[in-house]
């Protein structure tokens, strides 16, 4: 059993970390001619370049996180009421609305974006931050609505009913009864949206152009130019960001209940 377990874990690690190994090597390689198994000479040139403010990578990282955060917060705020209605109530035409909400997932986001591009030009939204945030909301919102509405269905309305008969108004119920129980769903949905936004290239470049240089946009020219060590460092950054985000969100969630308990006791 233990041997089996170890084998499975090793296999998973191999599959996950395997592709990253050559990237790590490339990121510190100076010369790595074919068919050598390992680089011939090493250098920290690529890392230094990427971490240098002037290269645009660090700023790109900042843009990526800012856009992703904005997209996530907006998606969360807009999705909460929609998800609540879809998750808790039965009404005529509900399935139609559900399909409408999921529609952006059924069609490649690029197709929708091509159509929207025209409209965005009319509205003056191209080459703006708002435009990039808006276009990224198109393919990410369905994930958020879907996750949250399942969350609402799971927690139901009974605790809210209980809170109401005890005299609590809507705001108090939302803050102290519903949202704490929805935390898991909110974190799950936010992770989806945040990661999708972080990794987006196509929509950002289409709508944002040069005005919004997120990390993928900064990175792409180096990949296209065939600078392997630089591309490797950039890709590693791009791969580590989601990992760091997920870990941060998960630990935040783990601390959530004890934090809340402390706040309640103080208040």
């Amino acid at each position: 059993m233990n041997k089996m377990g170890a084998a499975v874990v090793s296999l998973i690690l191999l599959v996950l970390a395997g592709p990253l190994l050559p990237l790590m090597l490339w990121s510190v390689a100076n010369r790595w001619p074919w068919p050598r198994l390992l680089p011939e000479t090493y250098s920290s040139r690529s890392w230094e370049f990427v971490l240098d403010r002037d290269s645009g990578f660090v700023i790109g990282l900042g843009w990526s996180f800012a856009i992703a955060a904005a997209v996530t917060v907006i998606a969360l705020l807009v999705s909460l009421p929609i998800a609540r209605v879809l998750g808790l109530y039965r009404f005529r035409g509900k399935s139609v609305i559900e399909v409408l909400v999921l529609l952006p997932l059924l069609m490649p986001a690029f197709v929708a974006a091509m159509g929207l591009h025209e409209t965005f030009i009319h509205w003056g939204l191209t080459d703006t931050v708002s435009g990039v945030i808006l276009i990224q909301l198109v393919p990410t919102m369905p994930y958020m609505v879907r996750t949250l509405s399942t969350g609402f269905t799971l927690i139901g309305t009974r605790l809210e009913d209980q809170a109401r008969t005890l005299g609590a108004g809507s705001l108090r119920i939302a803050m102290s009864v519903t949202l704490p129980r929805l935390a898991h769903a909110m974190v799950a949905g936010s992770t989806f949206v945040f990661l999708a936004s972080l990794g987006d290239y196509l929509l950002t470049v289409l709508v944002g152009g040069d005005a919004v240089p997120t990390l993928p946009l900064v990175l792409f020219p180096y990949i296209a130019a065939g600078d392997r060590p630089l591309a490797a460092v950039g890709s590693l950054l791009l791969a580590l960001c989601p990992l760091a985000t997920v870990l941060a969100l998960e630990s935040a969630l783990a601390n959530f209940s004890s934090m809340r308990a402390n706040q309640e006791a103080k208040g």
Partner: protein
Amino acid sequence: MSQIQLSGIAKSYNEQFVLHPITLTVEPGEILVVLGPSGCGKSTLLGIVAGLVEPSRGQVLFNGRSLAGVPAERRGIPMVFQDHLLFPGMTIAENIAFGLRARGVPRAERDDRVAAVLAAIQLASFGSRYPSELSGGQKQRVALARAIVLRPPLMLLDEPFSSLDSMLRREMRDLVLAMRREYGFSAIIVTHDPQEALELADRVAVMRAGRVEQVGTPEDIYFRPCNAFVARFLGPANIIASESGDLCVRPEAVQLALTGEGVTAHIVEKRFSGPRVEIVMETKVGHLSAIGPAHAYRGLEIGTHVYASWREQDAVFLRGT
């Protein structure tokens, strides 16, 4: 203490009545138990009083004032549910203080009231624990305390003890009655358990299929049921057909004798349950059942011929089924 009147309350979904127009009054300080099988509409009735369900017709009057349009959170009528519904992220003390916070009761008074009610439910040292650390009976006591701490004029209890075992149920009943003596509230309690209804109620309203069949004191309902449904729902009943209509005689009112007057019967079954024994007989009016103290029925065995009789005042004519 306040008076609650239900005036012609009805509820229908898609033209289908789940609750036919009902008119009932709960007097100040009174415990009214609404008793009925599951699906009879009793929980809907409670939801309407609480403000969680909108009635299709009629209105709820609170001390003569209509509650129509008043949302649940402003009615000041707390409800206790069958499955305690404690807030999982809050401690026991925070759970109990929840309604007080919503009412803006200052911190010091809040703490005093929570401590007092925690002591009253014998969980004084449990304030800082979380609901998941409590047993089912303890959680239900906290749910009760969370409502009582508000010193409400009226409380609603929806099958409050159904998820507890019989020992705990008895304890909870005693607790509710003790709390009422101390805090003096009226209550509407919904249950499907006739035992619970008879022990708790000042008055019982028996419901079937969205209608109130009979309202009365526990003795009234038990000894003078209006129809066969009420008679059978509240306990074992002998329903005997006669020329002037169906008669109901409770088995414990049936007297057995080896000689004398009465219906001739022979015993076909004897069910012993410790202090009491039930004797089932075959007679010309059908099966009859008698329940009495075990020691009095010693010597009566299956096959014994007996005479079954009852006093005139123990037999009640039923109107309908």
